[in-house]
């Protein structure tokens, strides 16, 4: 019964979404206030109905209603409640339902919070948002119905993949989708502005917070997934350049570019066409990611070809959405008049550089991700190549280095026309910091790749550069303390958010460098009471015990870790066996210190003739890895800080008509 209510709500949401496409659009064309206002109500109703459908499916999982096919395939009565709930989105149908739910929530958020939007723009945004909604709701209803019943109902479910039964992973997909799908807002605003034929600074001001919010979620979601892989997969890897990872990373790259270019639109009324294009491209990458992950094309091109219904459906959505939006762009963009001029060396120029490099990075990842698929499809399966981490590392890093180097400089340049020389002078301290970091790393960490100390230097450069910029804003040391304090308290949160986010990136780069360059690993077998050495540590297997968890049996090792100074630490890695799924997972024991993670894993046991039972033991010293997550956390914090800026929430004032560019001799105030 509950499932049928969910089904009904889903269908009703599809119908309402279809109406939401038409009514506000017509209303905007006729400037009919009633029709336009109707759009807002439908957006809220659509979100409410999808929330009801989602709740109905969640109910099915919570009470273990195995007559619902999806619940049967992805849940089990013995599973802990958290994973019963996370099982809702731990499968194709449920995750697509969550996708449209989040899409509808964003639409409803515009309807509710967008009171200060011009009514026609708001109506058109809601209409465009509903177009995406209709496409994906139709996809769910016609190819991926989550409320399909089984008759007769089975007695118990087949269980959720044990790897997915983890708190980190329970919250990873919702965050990721909030980011992924959140970029639909920027897309809808872009398309609505193209239809409207008007893009001004106010438009930039409306788009920025939505983009920022999506970016914060996506950053958090990617980091959470990476962290999960790190501690759950049992060998400390955290990024694999897997196509599915790339699918979420490409929207992130474009989204980051969009975040920066929308600043230029808001502050300088410039780069408007480009920002619109970026908004379209960012969401296109989200759609492409959905296609890659949901069509099965990654598993095998042949599997895709043999059961193409879902894949073709999403591919059509992708082509129509992207093709339609780009055609509209080609048609309308020439009517968008560019705003203020700016010199190549200027804040705008630096942001353009950021955009170009991020676009290049994204294009490279896209090429590497799609190339094997395209080659295989084009050659009919005869020609297959692999594009793996060595390719991405070789192409991605050279793009990132100049980008990171430039991040320190950009914010120090004035709008319109900057002074590179003055910025370089200010950055002397950062140069010293970078040099110091290189030298210290060389001395402190002998061995390892020759480039690693330079990467640490780059991180120090960025961190110090961010601090220099922050210091110069509040006139630290160059004005009386009281004056600095006054400036500090008056500093816009968006500006502080930028500093924090850039610092986070610096921390993350240090983490990436350390984790990739100086890892130590020990792989051996130990009997109880035996020890092994790794760097300055001695690892002793003290005991192994067996036990039962809620829905698994475990084997838990007790390791005594002794460092050079004689300090000791006990570690308890586990191996878990899930009888329902017939699978084993590892639970690494991780001790996080300031500079490194100590990471212990216990493997299978073997009986050796001479030494009795021995366990496979893996012990890793992962330097700087904690900085990776810390960096991501700080970046998210920077985004949230910026998002809390009042200026993002108050109504954007309509700017006075700008004077003709270049006529007014007064330089623009540097913010």
């Amino acid at each position, binding site marked *: 019964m509950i499932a049928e209510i969910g089904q009904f709500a889903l269908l009703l949401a599809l119908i309402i979404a279809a109406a939401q496409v038409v009514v506000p659009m017509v209303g905007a064309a006729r400037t009919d206030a009633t029709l336009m206002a109707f759009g807002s109500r439908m957006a809220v109703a659509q979100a409410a109905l999808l929330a009801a459908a989602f709740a109905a499916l969640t109910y099915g999982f919570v009470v273990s209603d195995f007559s619902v096919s999806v619940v049967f395939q992805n849940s089990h009565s013995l599973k802990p409640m958290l994973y019963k709930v996370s099982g809702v989105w731990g499968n194709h149908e449920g995750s697509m339902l969550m996708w449209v739910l989040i899409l509808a929530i964003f639409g409803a958020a515009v309807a509710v919070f967008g009171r200060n939007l011009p009514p026609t723009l708001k109506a058109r945004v809601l209409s465009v948002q509903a177009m995406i909604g209709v496409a994906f709701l139709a996809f769910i209803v016609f190819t991926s119905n989550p409320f399909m019943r089984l008759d007769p109902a089975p007695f118990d479910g087949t269980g959720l993949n044990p790897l997915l039964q983890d708190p980190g992973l329970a919250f990873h997909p919702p965050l990721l989708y909030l980011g992924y799908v959140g970029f639909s807002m920027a897309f809808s605003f872009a398309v609505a502005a193209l239809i409207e034929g008007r893009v001004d600074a106010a438009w930039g001001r409306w788009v920025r917070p939505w983009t920022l919010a999506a970016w914060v979620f996506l950053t958090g979601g990617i980091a959470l997934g990476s962290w999960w892989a790190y501690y759950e997969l049992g060998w400390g890897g955290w990024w694999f350049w*897997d196509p599915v990872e790339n699918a979420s990373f490409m929207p992130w790259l474009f989204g980051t570019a969009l975040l920066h270019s929308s600043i230029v639109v808001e502050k300088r009324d410039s780069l408007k066409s480009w920002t619109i294009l970026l908004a379209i491209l960012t969401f296109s990458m989200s759609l492409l990611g959905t296609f890659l992950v949901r069509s099965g094309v990654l598993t095998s091109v042949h599997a895709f070809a043999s059961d193409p219904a879902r894949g073709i459906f999403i591919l059509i959505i992708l082509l129509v959405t992207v093709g339609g939006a780009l055609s509209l762009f080609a048609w309308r963009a020439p009517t968008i008049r560019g705003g203020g001029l700016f010199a190549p060396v200027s804040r705008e120029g630096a942001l353009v550089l950021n955009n170009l490099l991020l676009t290049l990075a994204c294009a490279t990842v896209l090429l590497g991700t799609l190339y094997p698929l395209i080659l295989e499809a084009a050659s009919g399966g005869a020609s297959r*190549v692999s594009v793996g981490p060595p390719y991405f590392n070789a192409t991605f890093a050279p793009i990132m280095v100049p980008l990171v180097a430039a991040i320190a400089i950009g914010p120090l340049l004035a709008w319109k026309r900057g002074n590179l020389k003055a910025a370089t002078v200010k950055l002397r301290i950062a140069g010293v910091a970078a040099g110091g970091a290189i030298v210290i790393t060389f001395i402190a960490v002998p061995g390892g790749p020759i480039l690693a100390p330079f990467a640490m230097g780059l991180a120090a450069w960025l961190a110090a550069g961010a601090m220099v910029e922050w210091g110069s804003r509040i006139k630290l040391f160059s004005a009386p303390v009281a004056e600095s304090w006054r400036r500090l308290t008056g500093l816009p949160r968006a500006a502080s958010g930028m500093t924090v986010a850039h610092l986070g990136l610096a921390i993350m780069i240090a983490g990436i460098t350390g984790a990739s360059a100086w890892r130590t690993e020990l792989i051996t077998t130990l009997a109880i009471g035996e020890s092994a050495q790794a760097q300055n540590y001695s690892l002793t297997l003290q005991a192994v015990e067996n036990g039962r968890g809620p829905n698994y049996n475990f084997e838990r090792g007790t390791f005594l870790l002794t460092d050079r100074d004689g300090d000791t630490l006990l570690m308890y890695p586990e191996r878990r066996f899930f009888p329902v799924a017939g699978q084993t997972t590892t639970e690494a024991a991780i001790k996080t210190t300031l500079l490194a993670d100590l990471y212990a894993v216990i493997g299978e046991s073997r009986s050796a003739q001479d030494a009795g039972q021995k366990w496979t033991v893996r012990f890793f010293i992962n330097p700087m890895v904690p900085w990776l997550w810390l960096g991501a956390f700080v970046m998210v914090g920077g985004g949230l800080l910026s998002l809390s800026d009042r200026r993002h929430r108050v109504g954007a004032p309509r700017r006075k008509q700008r004077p003709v560019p270049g006529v007014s001799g007064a330089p623009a105030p540097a913010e």
Partner: protein
Amino acid sequence: MRHFLAIFAIVAAISAAGLVTGSPALAVEPDEVLADPVLEARARELSKVLRCVVCQNQSIDDSNADIARDMRLIVRERLVAGDTDDQTVAYMVARYGDYVLLRPPFQPNTMALWVGPPFMAMIIATLALLFFRMYQRERVASGSPEPLTPTDRAQLDALVDKLAAEPRRPRRQSGLRAELEQPFGSTGSGGNGSDNPAT
């Protein structure tokens, strides 16, 4: 981050093929490790660039599939037999095809893959250069009012000609003409001001 969805796809694919036997991603087993640490280090480095041929985008260093183990053992055999790194990789390619290389080779069917990024970088650099040139031109032009579009220019010329054709106000016509021509004269653009405002 082999995230959620990846795992979903991977596990579906691999378990369908009946390849999952042990725990996830516990790759190199202690009994595989070579006694010579130098050889072992080389083997590990090679393992990172060779693909487990039945896995979804995993190197044999990361994969716990049986075939990955076999491939790791073959790599070690070759190294122990005295092969260089290149010879070992060539041996694996001869056995498993280009597909085994995680760093695709530079050859006709992967040309676009390797030429693509530098090519795109060049396009972007060219665009940046064009922008720079355009800026310089506009900056020079920005000392005077916005240049006329060809349409404006034509309208203006027509207007001037029309006024010039009126015989009754000769003085006013010449004055107007001088007045209208004045701003363009200052940029030296003469007859076709909008096309070439800078020089």
